């Protein structure tokens, strides 16, 4: 191209400036994102005197516990595998509930006029400014046997329900805390959808459900993937919610890590964290692969 010569020097200048702008982050990311993960691996594969060992990793997979089932028969289960599967189950349920609850509201938001959109968004964000611990604590008051729900039920003459300490309570806590993380990515893809596409589909004879299935849903997949990631990951590793709303009866993988940390068993805590990280990476990798490159990253 017939560019004047000066441009070349200028471009170099510009590139140099951009590189300089990137440099602090590069150093930071290397030092505080990558290196710490190496430390997790290092601790996971060493014993208390920092000698190499597979002990911690194999303990995760082989440790067993006797459990008695209802009929009195005793079974042997693999402790941490079971804990992990339980956490995954609860997190998956919570994520699914978040998706089901969040999808319509995200759609409603995206289709409202700008002013309503803005208000709804703000309203959804407000709870996040009150600390997570306090919000979770307040749920106890609502869910407990003499709590608000049951008082309401008995006021209208219905029999009380037992919620606190059940799986439902833990799921409610997780859904509550992480719902905004589902709504916002969903909303952000839906707001970008072209209304004309929906109208076109209707003009061409698509039913309401048809539009949803053939147009809206496929277009929203990247948001769905983002939302699932943002909800699944924190809910799989939480330990406060399960302690407070689960009556201490739900022992999740986060509780296991925290328990080993307070028992000053750093190497085993690191091993559990390391395995959790690898398993999640695999999950995310599979999900990304399934949805191809629909998810918008940096690249």
């Amino acid at each position, binding site marked *: 191209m017939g560019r004047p010569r000066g441009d070349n020097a*200028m471009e170099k200048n510009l590139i140099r400036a951009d590189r300089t702008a990137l440099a602090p982050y590069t150093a930071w990311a290397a030092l505080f994102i990558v290196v710490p993960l190496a430390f997790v691996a290092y601790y996971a594969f060493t014993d208390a005197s920092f000698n190499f060992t597979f002990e911690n990793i194999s303990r995760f997979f082989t440790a067993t516990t006797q459990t008695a089932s209802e009929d009195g028969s005793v079974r042997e289960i693999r402790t941490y595998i079971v804990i992990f599967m339980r956490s995954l189950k609860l997190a998956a349920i919570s994520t699914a509930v978040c998706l089901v609850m969040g999808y319509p509201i995200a759609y409603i938001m995206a289709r409202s006029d700008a002013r309503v959109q803005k208000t709804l968004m703000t309203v959804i964000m407000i709870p996040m400014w009150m600390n997570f611990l306090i919000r979770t604590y307040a749920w106890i008051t609502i869910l407990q046997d003499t709590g608000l729900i049951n008082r309401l039920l008995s006021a209208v003459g219905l029999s009380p329900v037992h919620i606190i300490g059940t799986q439902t309570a833990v799921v409610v806590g997780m859904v509550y805390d992480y719902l905004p993380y589902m709504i916002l990515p969903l909303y*952000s893809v839906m707001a970008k959808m072209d209304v004309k596409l929906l109208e076109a589909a209707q003009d061409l004879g698509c039913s309401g459900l048809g539009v949803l299935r053939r147009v809206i849903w496929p277009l929203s997949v990247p948001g769905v993937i983002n939302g699932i990631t943002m909800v699944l990951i924190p809910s799989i590793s939480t330990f406060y919610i399960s302690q407070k709303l689960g009556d201490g009866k739900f022992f999740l993988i986060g509780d296991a890590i925290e328990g080993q940390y307070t028992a000053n068993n750093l190497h085993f805590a690191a091993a559990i964290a390391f395995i959790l990280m690898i398993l999640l990476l695999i999950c995310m990798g599979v999900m990304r692969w399934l949805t191809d490159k629909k998810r918008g990253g940096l690249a």
Partner: protein
Amino acid sequence: MKHLSRIYTAIIMIFLFAPIAVLLVFSFNGANSLSVMSGFSLHWYRELLRDSNTLISLRNTLVLALSSAFIATVMGTGAAVGIDKLRSRTALTVYDTVTNIPMTNPDIITGISLMLMFVFTGRLIGSTSSLNFATMLIAHITFCLPYVILQVLPRLSQMDRALPEAAMDLGCTPVRAFFKVVFPEIMPGVLTGLIMSFTLSVDDFVISYFTAGNGFETLPIRIYSMTKKTVTPKMYALATIIFFTIMALLIINNVMSDDQRAQARERRKARLPMSSTADMLTDAETVASPAKGRSRKLSDRGKLAVVACLIAVCLLLIIVPPALIDSDMQTLNVYNWGEYIADGSEEFMDVVSEFEDWYYDNYGRRVNVNYTTYATNEDMYAKLKSGAVSYDVIVPSDYMIARLIEEDMLLEIDFGNIPNYENIGEEYRYLYFDPEARYSVPYIYNINAIIYDANVVDEEDAQGWDLLWNPKYAGKILQYNNPRDAFGTAMYKLGIDANTTDPDEWNRALEELLRQRPLVKAYVMDEVFNLMESGEAAIACYYGGDYFLMSDAASEDVDLQLYYPDPTCYFMDSMCIPSCCQNKELAEIFINFLLEEDVAVQNAEYISYSSPNVLVQESEEYADYMGEEAMEALYPEIDDFTELYNANSFRNQDSATMDLMNSLWEALKIQ
């Protein structure tokens, strides 16, 4: 359809705001309960304003959030500019992956990974306080960065790339070109990133929990460490204030942008109104945006207003508790249980600030007490053992003191600096963990008791440990949510020595707990207060002194009673000076101060456990305050306290037993 979507929106809003409504209402509770509402009062707001430690932790939270958000935004914006120009696919993939790590890694892993690194490098360079404000700041910046980058990047890619070049053609330097041309274009993304970082930082608990060090306690850490005592409506009052502050900010912001919008409409320039904190968390190009040009600038101003208000509020908060940067100022780091010192609430003395004043009056120098709290002995030990913190005074329980002495982690106390030590009763001085009284000064002690609701539990059942296993009260029984105390109850019931190292006996105790599990309503720590006060549960084993706090706040149809099963566990929490102490003499002066009669009385009344301080036990004011029933329960007639205590308290466990206990505990919990 329209109606349907309105109803649905309303349902979601109710769901999102139900707990907030609850904490709003309970913040006006007349009683100290989060489940029984009795009367309207502003009590907790007054309490909050008097509680300087909570206010400091609020300030710390805001300072941390503001500085991490600011640094993350600057660095993240720079990074986005750089990444935007990258041409190599490999480089892009690398940056994409690394940037995604903090977002797709669970908090707990980010927290642990940073903690491990800080602790390890801290040890390498021999630093005694490698966990501190700086490490929390680093952690918060690290998890905020990706959000900023992902907000700014799309703005950059939408921008006309010829713009900065044109600016430079016209003689701008690259930096000038950036600020003149690029920055205004990407401003909305930058602001959204900033607000998002701030929000995430304020809301974070997990990462702070692992990276927190001494002298810098944030709100979440403080709330978490209230686990042994109870979370009071005071915290709800705080949340309510935060809530209304945010509302006010948003309304101001709305009014302002409405103004601007009106003006803009007049000028027929605004096409699409949008603004405010609203577009947090979405990526930048959301909100159907032909909103390029002018209307976007409106939204910027709205956001700027929010940011400005935030900064103003934070600055105010920073200034309010006067942070005297005095070169002559000494610092004392105290690490104590949550809710374990009279803190200026109710009619109580604010012991910490009282000490600061007293010290200034007597020594003519300023001292700043950094008072931080922990939830369990094990939490405290984990922090101390990491070698990454530095405390001057700690208050561990007996078995933990034994462990610390064994591991050479305590300093011998110079009792010459603690003349008030004579106030400590002779029988409390030479307990098993410190038989020669060299390392510890008794602070407060108590006895594990069984607390029950006499309206539910029959009189004849209320004895011994069997009550906790009585199937008649299935679903009404509470058990400790910590392994040591829980196994203790089973061992006492079985007549096993609670300090046994025999695995068979531990397994028998586990079987007993497994047998109890179907009867247990919940495994609890501080939740015990709410559950007992509201009558949800009828039987609990807990620390005897807490009974008085519970029965004060209990609902009308609950009649709480207490008895001590035999045998039961005694515990003593004593003041010690850890080997990382930086100012031993000051620590001793502080300990001495806590033994003064009026201070010790205040603390004993506040904590409501038994005091080993003779002056307290003899104080008439104290006896009046506690009442006869409490005095009898707190100070049962004991011939030889030392002997009884030594026979009935937890000892330090060897690591094999500790490991066994933890895995048996997991076995109990995963049934």
